[in-house]
């Protein structure tokens, strides 16, 4: 009997059910979408913040002091300490390897551009060896990915060995100064290269504009720079872009002063400091530092934006809760007559209350489930429209399973809480009074 009453109520009062259901559906849609966006906003903003470049820099521990003013090396060091290029693969083996999003080693060397051929006059030029599209154990990375503000006209040199010529990229100011353009070829001589006849000429494959001192440099593949200087496997400095957790007081602790248990916790959190520590461990003779300008500021921005999203989600939750419970209350107030009839026909208060709660619960689960799906889709759509996504969106990336029980439980609580005052009022009122008033 109870079950039949329940079914019939859904079958016959479609309009009323539709209104309350719509309120729940929309409420859960909004809440799911906001929560889904809030949980993923950190990652998304972090990807955007990668536009600021590396947040960790690695250099040889025994390095000489750099004498740089405004990005220009005033007294370039020759010789000195190097890191090994072959050691960089170890970065993919540290505890937080998956958080390392990009690696860009560099090797600055001095060279001469012989624009008039092998016997022509030599112009001293600054040359930097870089990775452009290097495959580092599964991630394709290099200088362009770590410097998204570099604007290139033409193409980056590829690592593949070209017979006949070496591809290079020239900084925009230097290109103007030397009168170079894409396709120009000349001889690029390094300190270690005396026998020029066997060297392939350099050919300009692109002109890069960066807004800093790189505009005055020539960029070549790392292996080319190593050959020019005669130092195999050497890099001077490595920039690393890592996904990190914003720094807190614990992150600033010196791991060597912590107790073993605390140290373990410190080590296993993706702070910039702990990732730098792990890099120092992995690469012999290195020193890794967080780039504070990027890392500290990113932390603040990230915290503010995700904080904002969470607070807005809370506001959405509150508003949706109010709207849904108001809709539920209205739906029950409308049916006072029904309650009066049932009571006068002998239904106990418990039965009536149970019936209405069961209705509210069924509605909440059904509309809440639909709202979860709609909200997940909506957040996926919004996220894809606003943020650049890598790869196609899949169902599994859209749905956040943890949210399902959360959202449906919230819908249940709100629906039941919203109906309670109305049900109580209807049950307190004398059935005969209700019936008289209504008929």
């Amino acid at each position: 009997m109870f079950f039949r009453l329940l079914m019939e109520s859904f079958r016959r009062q479609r309009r009323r059910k539709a209104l309350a259901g719509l309120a729940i559906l929309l409420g859960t849609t909004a809440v799911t979408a906001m929560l889904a966006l809030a949980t993923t906003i950190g990652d998304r903003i972090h990807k955007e913040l990668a536009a600021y470049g590396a947040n960790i820099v690695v250099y040889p521990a025994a390095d000489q002091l750099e004498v740089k003013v405004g990005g220009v090396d005033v007294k370039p060091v020759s010789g000195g300490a190097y890191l090994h290029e072959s050691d960089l693969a170890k970065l993919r083996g540290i505890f937080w390897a998956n958080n390392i999003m990009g690696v860009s080693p560099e090797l600055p060397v001095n060279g001469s551009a012989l624009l008039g051929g092998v016997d022509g006059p030599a112009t001293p030029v600054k040359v930097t060896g870089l990775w452009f599209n290097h495959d580092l154990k599964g991630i394709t990375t290099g200088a362009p990915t770590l410097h998204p503000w570099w604007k290139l006209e033409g193409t980056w040199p590829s690592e593949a060995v070209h017979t006949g010529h070496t591809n290079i990229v020239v900084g925009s100011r230097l290109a103007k100064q030397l009168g170079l353009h894409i396709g120009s070829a000349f001889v690029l001589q390094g300190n270690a290269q005396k026998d020029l006849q066997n060297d392939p000429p350099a050919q300009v494959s692109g002109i890069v504009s960066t807004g800093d001192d790189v505009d005055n440099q020539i960029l070549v593949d790392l292996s080319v720079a190593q050959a020019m200087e005669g130092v195999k496997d050497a890099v001077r400095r490595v920039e690393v872009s890592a996904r990190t957790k914003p720094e807190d007081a614990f992150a600033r602790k010196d791991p060597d002063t912590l107790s073993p248990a605390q140290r373990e916790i410190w080590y296993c959190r993706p702070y910039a400091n702990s990732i730098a520590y792990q890099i120092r461990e992995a690469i012999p003779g290195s020193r890794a530092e967080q780039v504070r300008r990027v890392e500290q500021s990113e932390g603040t921005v990230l915290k503010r934006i995700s904080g904002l999203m969470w607070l807005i989600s809370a506001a959405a939750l509150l508003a949706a809760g109010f709207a849904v419970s108001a809709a539920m209350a209205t739906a029950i107030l409308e049916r006072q007559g029904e309650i009066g009839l049932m009571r006068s026909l002998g239904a106990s208060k418990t039965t009536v209350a149970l019936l209405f709660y069961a209705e509210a619960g069924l509605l909440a689960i059904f509309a809440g489930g639909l709202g979860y799906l709609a909200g997940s889709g909506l957040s996926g759509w919004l996220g894809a429209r606003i943020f650049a996504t890598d790869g196609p969106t899949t169902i599994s990336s859209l749905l956040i399973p943890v949210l399902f029980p959360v959202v449906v439980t919230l819908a249940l609580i709100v629906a039941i809480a919203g109906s309670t005052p109305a049900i109580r009022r209807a049950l307190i009122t004398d059935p005969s009074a209700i019936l008289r008033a209504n008929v």
Partner: protein
Amino acid sequence: MSHLSMGAILRRSLVHRRARSLSALIAMTVSAAVATALLTLYADLDSKLHREFRSFGANIVVTAADSNNGIPADALAKVLATAGSDAQAAEFSYAVASTDRGTPIVVVGTDFDAVRKLNSWWQVDAWPAATDANAALLGQRAAQFVADEHNVQLTFGSHPLTLRGAGRLRTGGDEDSRIYLPMATFTTWTGAHPSVIEVQVPGGATQVEAAIVRLRQALPGMKVDPVRQLVEGESRIVDKTHALMYGAVLLIALTVAVSVLATLSASVLERRRDFALMKALGGSQSNLMAMFLLEALVLALGGVAAGYILGSAAAWAISQLNFHTATLPRIGVLPLVFLLNILIAFLAALFPVRVLRRLEPAALLKGE
């Protein structure tokens, strides 16, 4: 006469069914409060976000076009006057000196107070007091090339200088290999004048571009360049957050609006019997519609008044919690909130009209 009686009906209708009026009023208040809070936050969002990006430091660099000459002495004052009241700037002067061990090292003259404000990401053990002419900040790498941090012996050309290291500086950038000292001491020691001014102008790419144009006009013969890395990144992130908020505002406003609409139109439908009775007593269709609309208008007005206060308080709380700065109530959002609420209320009153128009009073009063 008809107006008078309409007012009386309205008052009775609102007072007599207090519970229903109250729930409608709450619904309208919620929708007005949500709209107010979100619009207030949204209107303030860009400036708030840009303030957060200040922590990235300078986004414009002013240098002398000819690197051999320093910049004019009044340049800093001109920069501060042109760039805007909330801009920050610090001047720097660079020279290469050698330490007591003979290592060449970059020494920088600057104003510590200005740098501290400009470069909040610098991690410094202890900032030197502005009055201490011989206090210096040692970059963490530079410190390793100095024999005694409290008695730093430097030589520039043939001029010696003894500095007292106040603390170490950690940045992870070029600053790590430098020694910073007060500008006055630097100038008397090396004879070099400031060569670079770093400026921080709050705002996105357009504000920075505008500031650069103004600076170029005010400082002829000097190079004014944006720090491209910062300007582009900031605009991108602020734009995306803005778009995200826009989506969220629309989504939430829509949800609340539709839920409120559902609630209100249900409560109008509930009153079919009143409607039928009034019609039977001789009320015209338009008369009755006007009554419903008037009632909706009153409820909407009440909702807007309460919702504006609640919503402004919510916006203030959210912004205080998240950005640690207050967002003051904005009168500007009021018309929009009012319009939105009126629209919801009218739709809620008009939505059931089709149903009501078809009603046969006699049939309804007899019991459907």
